[in-house]
């Protein structure tokens, strides 16, 4: 994996143009299927600019991959859906504007689950993303391409989006670092929404420091997103004996728990104060999450009717028949399933039974986190309850939804959570998530930096791809 520091060292002896060219060669030969669209012309032009000393900023000359649900002006943005397979946004997302301002080189748009609905990137219209450590396994989802391109050394930095674990899951499965920022820290302007009240755009990188650096660039005030908190972020590592809570209810299978407990006992306990915390609301989180996410999704995805942009039919028909056919043909199965379930949950007679109840459960989850985080600086748990699955292994949707059990409570509460690699089991990466208080990403990164240092030999492994 390539860190920003390593990339900068390479830039001292090689031209940016050559490095970016090599990167594209690698991507074009790759079996990972991490990218949907490459931004080769612009990327090479920017690399040349960098070589001429014209490209300035915090990320000058550094390649960044952008998840394909984040709008890029003039560059196709598909959400990995047939519905938007030819959609070219006329504007940049806020985070993309920030990347450009800081001289980053956007190399392409990464593969994902269709409209970010999935945990394995198997629902993509453009095919599954493969795990850089085992090509027969998934890279996680929904930001599978962003995780895989880092694990497979096809980019240095990447942006993902996290609605219920979509950054942390692929970070965990691909052995990289990924943050779901506090709700409101990063502007969502330009992020094609799946579930607005839950999701955030977040940084993904090959080490904690790079992840923090990318957050510094993308966080901050944006009046176009009314839920934006107007805060900036600057990483200033603190060295303290943090009080760390291990969440009792968040577990995993033996493979995962073995590794997680080993790290807790060998690294966390000797260096920090460790307590066990309980989250009684945990059992409500998964159903509440899916009801809220699907409800919002059913409404968000109503705009895809084949009238103004995206998938359309040649043959005109009556309005109802036309848009129904567009949607039947343009959306994949998982998207249709979630739209139907969300529509049902919001329907008269069921609203109180499902949606309102889910909102109440959400309040309980939030309170649990607030209580636990009053006592602890950070909370830790395995990011995913299992190792990366074989492609096609999770055929049943319910089994797949259950894999989000550790990640979704964080989105319900809105608190920040970082997934970092803590080692390998059976040759596959395992991730640990570190949860912090609202807008205390600095504490999370500081703690993560310590764990990363202690585990340096364990996690710096190269993928097979």
């Amino acid at each position, binding site marked *: 994996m390539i860190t920003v520091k390593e990339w900068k060292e390479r830039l001292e002896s090689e031209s940016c143009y050559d490095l970016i060219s090599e990167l594209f060669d690698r991507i074009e030969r790759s079996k990972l299927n991490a990218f949907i669209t490459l931004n080769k012309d612009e990327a090479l032009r920017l690399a040349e600019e960098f070589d001429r000393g014209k490209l300035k900023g915090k990320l000058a000359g550094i390649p960044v991959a952008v998840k394909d649900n984040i*709008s890029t002006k003039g560059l196709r943005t598909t959400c990995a859906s047939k519905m938007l397979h030819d959609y070219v946004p006329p504007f940049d997302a806020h985070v993309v504007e920030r990347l450009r301002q800081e001289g980053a080189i956007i190399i392409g748009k990464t593969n994902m689950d269709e409209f970010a609905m999935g945990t394995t990137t198997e629902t993509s219209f453009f095919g599954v993303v493969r795990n850089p450590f085992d090509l027969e396994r998934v890279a996680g989802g929904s930001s599978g391409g962003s995780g895989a391109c880092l694990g497979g050394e096809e980019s240095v930095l990447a942006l993902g989006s996290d609605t219920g674990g979509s950054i942390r899951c692929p970070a965990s499965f691909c052995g990289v670092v990924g943050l779901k920022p506090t709700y409101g820290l990063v502007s969502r*302007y330009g*992020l094609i929404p799946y579930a607005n009240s839950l999701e955030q755009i977040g940084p993904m990188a090959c080490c904690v420091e790079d992840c923090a650096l990318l957050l510094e660039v993308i966080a901050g005030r944006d009046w176009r997103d009314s839920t934006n908190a107007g805060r900036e972020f600057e990483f200033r590592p603190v060295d303290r004996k943090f009080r760390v809570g291990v969440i009792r209810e968040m577990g995993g299978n033996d493979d995962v728990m073995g590794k997680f407990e080993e790290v807790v006992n060998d690294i966390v306990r000797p260096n920090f104060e460790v307590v066990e915390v309980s989250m009684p609301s945990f059992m409500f989180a998964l159903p509440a999450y899916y009801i809220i996410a699907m409800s*919002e999704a059913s409404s968000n995805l109503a705009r895809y*009717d084949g*009238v103004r942009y995206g998938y359309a039919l040649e043959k005109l028909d009556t309005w109802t028949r036309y*848009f129904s056919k567009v949607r039947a043909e343009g959306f994949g199965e998982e998207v249709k399933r979630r739209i139907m379930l969300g529509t049902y949950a*919001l329907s008269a007679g069921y609203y109180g039974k499902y949606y309102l109840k889910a909102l109440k459960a959400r309040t309980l989850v939030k309170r649990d986190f607030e209580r636990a985080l009053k006592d602890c600086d950070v909370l830790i748990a395995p990011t995913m309850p299992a190792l990366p699955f074989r492609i096609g292994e999770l055929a049943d949707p319910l089994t797949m939804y259950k894999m989000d059990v550790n990640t979704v409570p964080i989105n319900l509460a809105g608190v920040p959570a970082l997934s970092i690699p803590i080692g390998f089991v059976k040759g596959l990466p395992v991730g640990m998530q570190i949860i912090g208080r609202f807008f205390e990403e600095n504490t999370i990164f500081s703690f993560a930096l310590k764990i990363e240092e202690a585990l340096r030999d364990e996690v710096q492994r190269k993928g097979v791809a």
Partner: protein
Amino acid sequence: MGYATSMEPDVIIGLEVHVQLNKLKTKLFCSCPLDYHEDEPNTHVCPVCLGLPGAMPVVNKEAVKAAIKVALALHAEVQPFTVFDRKNYFYPDLPKGFQISQYDRPLALGGYVTIETEEGEKKITLKRIHMEEDPGKLTYKGSITTAKYCLIDYNRSGVPLLEIVTEPVMHSPKEARLFLNKLRIILEYLDVFDGSLEGAMRVDANVSIRGGGRVEIKNISSFKGVERALSYEIARQKNLLRMGRKVERETRHFDEVNNITVSLRSKEEEQDYRYFPEPDLVPIYTAELLEEVKGTLPEMPEEKRERLKAQYGIGDNFAKVLVLDKVMADYFEEVAKHVDPKLAASWVVDVLRGELNYRGKDFRFAYEMLKPEEFAKLLRYFREERITEKGVVEVIRIKLDHGGDVDEIIRSRGLFAIPKEEIERLCREAIEKNPKAVADYKGGKKKALDFLVGYVMKATRGRANPAETAQILKKMLEE
């Protein structure tokens, strides 16, 4: 089929009025300008009002302030906090597949509008006032039934709308019309609304007759339409009841060409809008905005009526009419600066208003064609007897139809009144040249005087005052 006209207690009418806050500068959730009426379709659009993926709404604070202004003027209770919700349904004019509206946390609750009916003053009570965005506009080539396709103009998409919902307290189509007229006057006073623009006010009317189901008539786009649709609908429902049939609860459409209502969908087919809070917006706390708005609330019609009477000494009959249109009241006040207010009131209300009505115009047009200072000058000439009443009216007509300079018009048309000495000279001339008529008059034929007056009128081409001339002639003949 007989149309219901007078008040009937068994008829129950409630209205939902959609009002465009079309005097604002920008749309409700984006910064696209609202002055699109003269422009090409789809030129006042952006990612937000086109519903492009990833675009996010931002509440226009000025629109919320305007809405609060309306709520205060309608005596409604502005809620401490208010929430936007999504109203979900599919339609090609709705770019997001949902409309951002308000559901269980509207901007304001309650309120009333006072109307003057033949039975006296009546308060039409309001249920609620909420904010929402206007959808785009569909255009069909030919008619809606024969067109092969329809065109969509999104210039209107995102225009700030207020939905004002009354309690079901009206009992005749006329009351409904009086309510809408008064509402329009109030909105124009607040300077948030221009009722002359296309689609500025659209009405959904609920009507039922005791014992029957409630029928909703959707999207009536004119005041006359509301009265006609209600009259038709009441007659239809009465006929059904008379025949012993049931009035089913349903939604109907008003066909403005044939003046009838036609069934759109029954209760079973009612849409489920699946309202839920708009997750891209945050609740609005109104306290601060409310304070800001309170200081800017203009004088409302009732207050103005009292002030005009007190300040200018004009009668209530004039004051009542003047406040019906804020522009007319303003016009009057400017005229009254330069000339006797009582004279100004009667001329503005009785003459100028009539001349404008006749031309299908309002006082905005008067401001353009016959400025208040010019009108005041004309009335001053009249007061000084330099021009006759007939002359004033003629100048008004010429000014409204062609424009021009007041003095020039009077001069070129010879409208300046004839001086008294000249009239007296012509009277003497009439007597001298018409000995027979004089003899007839003296012989008791009083009608002969008319002949002499006619002579003077002819000589002055009608500019002499006939009554005055008759007086002079009589006096001369009796000497």
